[in-house]
Every structure is written in C-alpha cells, then in structure tokens.
C-alpha cells in the first residue's frame, strides 16, 4: 500500500443525490414519510415502513448517540492506509434511524456506547462531503 489511493467515495444516484448535495452545503437532511410519518436512513425512492413514494426531506437535528463502535487498526481499502486507527461507528439519530459513520475529533480510546454525538462535515474532496460525528 505504498502509492496513495483515494478512499471509496459515493457516486450519487436518483435516491441519494439530494442528500449528498446537502452534505456539500454542510446540511444534514434525512427522509420522512408523508404517509406514515416515519423517518428513514439511508435515502430510498420509497418508504421502507409503508412503501409510499411520498417522501420529504427534513433538516435533521444532527444529534445522536453511539449504538456501537470499533477501533479499526487495519485499512479495509488502500485509501484508508494513512487513516488507521479510525473509529467505525453506528449512531442512532435523535429522529430514530441508525447510520454508519466515523467518530472524529477525539481520542479513539475515549469513545463509548451511549456517548452523545453531533454531526460534523468532512470535505473529503471538492465534490464529496461525508457527514461524520464528534462527541457533543
């Protein structure tokens, strides 16, 4: 893993373009169903609770708590070779859905399940921003 290699990045598509565009603008939005009022993550073309297409984007609070985490010492892809160790995590958003992310801006050894976190934006390239989370 000598040569620097870009990490895997999302290629936005019909379901997800609005989400990634908002992230570029440092806004964190998630979908809410107009029919059953449930939130969902990740973005889809239909509601995963009732199969409705009537989905609306809502500005999320950006707050959540760590559901689980793992300090990763091995790069899963050459693009992470210079990023280990990093904290892979699942965060339960205040709105209910759960998402994968990284916990950043802290010593990995201080991360705990149940820890309160808030969204922060990592501008990985000119075109792609990843929502990540940091301790509140």
């Amino acid at each position, binding site marked *: 893993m000598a040569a620097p290699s870009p990490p*895997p990045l999302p290629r936005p598509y019909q379901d997800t373009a609005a989400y990634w565009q908002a992230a570029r603008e440092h806004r964190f939005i998630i979908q809410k169903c107009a029919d059953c009022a449930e939130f969902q993550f990740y973005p889809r073309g239909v509601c995963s609770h009732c199969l409705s297409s009537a989905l609306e984007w809502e500005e999320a609070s950006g707050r959540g708590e760590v*559901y689980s985490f*793992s*300090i990763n010492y091995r790069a899963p892809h050459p693009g992470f070779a210079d990023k280990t160790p990093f904290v892979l995590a699942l965060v339960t958003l205040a709105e209910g859905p759960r*998402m994968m992310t990284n916990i950043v801006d802290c010593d990995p050894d201080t991360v705990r399940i149940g820890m309160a976190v808030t969204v922060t934006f990592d501008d990985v390239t000119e075109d792609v921003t990843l929502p990540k989370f940091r301790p509140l």
Partner: protein
Amino acid sequence: MATALRDVAIVGVAESDIGRVPDKSKFQLSAEASRMALEDAGLSVGDVDGLFTTIITEGGQFSSMLMAEYMGITPRFTDSTSIGGSSFVVYVEHAAMAIAAGLCDVALICHGSTNISDRGGRGGPVSQSTEVFGPTQFEEPYGVSTVGAYALAAQRHMHEYGTTSEQLAEIAVATRKWASLNPKARMRDPITIDDVMNSRVIASPLHLLDCCLVTDAGGAVVLTSLERARDLKKAPVRVLGAGEAHSHRMISQMPDLTQTAAAISGKLAFERAGLTHSDIDVAEIYDSFTITVLLTLESLGFCAKGEGGAFVSNQRTAPGGEFSMNTQGGALSYTHPGMFGIFTIIEAVRQVRGECGPRQVPGAEVALCNGTGGTLSSTGTIILGRD
C-alpha cells in the same frame, strides 16, 4: 412440504484441494469437488439435473449457467440464490423442495473460491472500486470491512451482556483443538486463550485469532430422493428440517446487533424436523468470527440471549466437551474461502455417517448446520439425520 423434506437425502459430499491452491481456478476447484462428491454418492455427472451455486467474485456472473456449462450439465432446475456464505445451506432446503416436488432428481450444490490466491497469497483486503454506487455508499466511505462490521456486533454484545474477549477466545481455542484432529485443517497447532488475547487487534474488540482464515477451497454436496438414495453407495443422510431468513443487507440496517436471522431459520428448522435442541448430537455453526458463533448459539436457542459467553466457557465446545461443535476445525482453523456454508454440510454428513476417525463424535445421529451470510445478514439452518 415440510414433511416432504424428510424424503430427500444427502448422498455425496467432498471438498477439493484446500489451503493455497494457486495453480487451480475457482471453477476447477468447484468442478473437482463436484466430481468427487458424485463419486462419493456412486453417481455420475450425467445424473445431475439440478444445479445450485453462486460465485460472488470476479468472473462469476450468472453462476449456475457458468458452472453448468463448465461441467457439461443441462439442468432443469437452476438456482443461484446469492445471500453470502449461507447460500449453500439454503440450497439444501431449495434442492430438497425441488426433489420432493419432482422438479429434479439429482441436485448438485457446488462452490469454489481462490480467496487467498486472488490476493497474491497474502491476507488483507482485495482491491475495491473507489466509486461506490448503490446503498453501500452509506457504509464503504466510512471504512467498513467484514471484520469491522462483526466487531460492531461484538462490541454491542459486550455492552449489553458483559460478554468478554476471553469468552470469545474460548471458541477459537476449542475449534483449534478439533482442527488438530483433522489432517486437512490448515491450522493445527494448539492455541491458548492468552494466545488469542495477545494476538493483534484487527478491529476492536476482535483480535486476529477471533477471525477466520483466508484460503482457497471448493466443496460439493449431492442430494436425491430417499428412495433412490437407499440404492446408492453410502448410507443416506436425511434432511429432517430446514429454514432460511435474512434480516438486512448492511450491518447499519441490522435491527438488533445481538440477534441474527437464525432466530427465524433455526425455529423453522426445529419445527419442521419435529426435534428440539437436546436431539442435536453435533452442531456445525458458521464461524466467520468467534462472535458469529456466540450470536448464532443464542439465536438458535441453544442458550438464552446474553448467555452465549457462559455457554462456551470451560471449553464446552471442544473435543470431549458437552457440546460438540465445528468438528472439522471450522472457518477459524480448517478452511475459509470467503463463503464457508458448504463445509458445514460436508462435515455434518460425515459425522452422521460416522466417517470422521479421531474427531468422530460418538453416536452422532442428528446434526445441525447453520450458515451465516453477508454481515450477519442471512441464515440457513438445516437438521440432518441417519436414515
């Protein structure tokens, strides 16, 4: 249909060359395992009219057509269900249904993979694309890996139930003891709980020795009707019950990190077999990681949720222990070519036939196999027994 499963039997099993096999393609490993499994049954390739296989790596698209063409088979029943390492266990259910319904007579389940040779003979990640399309774009950019995903489950189980790394290590140590009795196992030197604890952390809380091997391997299983099976070379091993389920694709969507779909597939398999846990003489539980086994034992109901750590303690699953499990040495010590499911079946059949030599579980008449695929996503459970 549930009772019709019982009128179907596994009649042939085999593994190909396993370990590091750089001079053979995954297609050849799959085909050679198929030839040997048919020989084990006393059948020939011309008898096969149902084919069940999936290849998830490069060049494997349209897997059942590819492998049928490769081996000169023209199936009238074909199935490339692709749900990860559990696929091959689920194929037993599908094949048994197809045979019971008269849709095919002789079903061949096969698998081949050059998982270590594809990586130039080293461990570590295979190269992935740098642009992620589809829902996995909500995981891959954050550095998810198979071990990372399973580590999330382990961490959560420890948090909820106080499970310890030492308890997970019990599984790795016991499995290695079984491997030491299997000449085909890749890793046969005994290990201790301290060895596991002192091996480097790959993704906390999982250590290197909590993780399965990476190998090349092929395997195959042949089924036919019980009626026809009784005239073949080996004693038939009946399909007593089966179940399948999946709960998610991506670990971030898993409803509860401490319970797998085996809670569904296992319940179905027991119900359809009309058996209970105490009837199981030997269990072959897909062990991609030590945590996979712990969650599966709980989800199958061998112990209560949260009690998996205590259940596996004091080397309970080792040779001579109360609960005979992963008797060929498992994915942790025997072989793991990316998808392990078929090897749970091969070993279960050999145990029920009484062919296992020094690692034979005395009096094994009923065996359970549980395959897990994806990231704790899919499960297939089958219960096999003597005719």
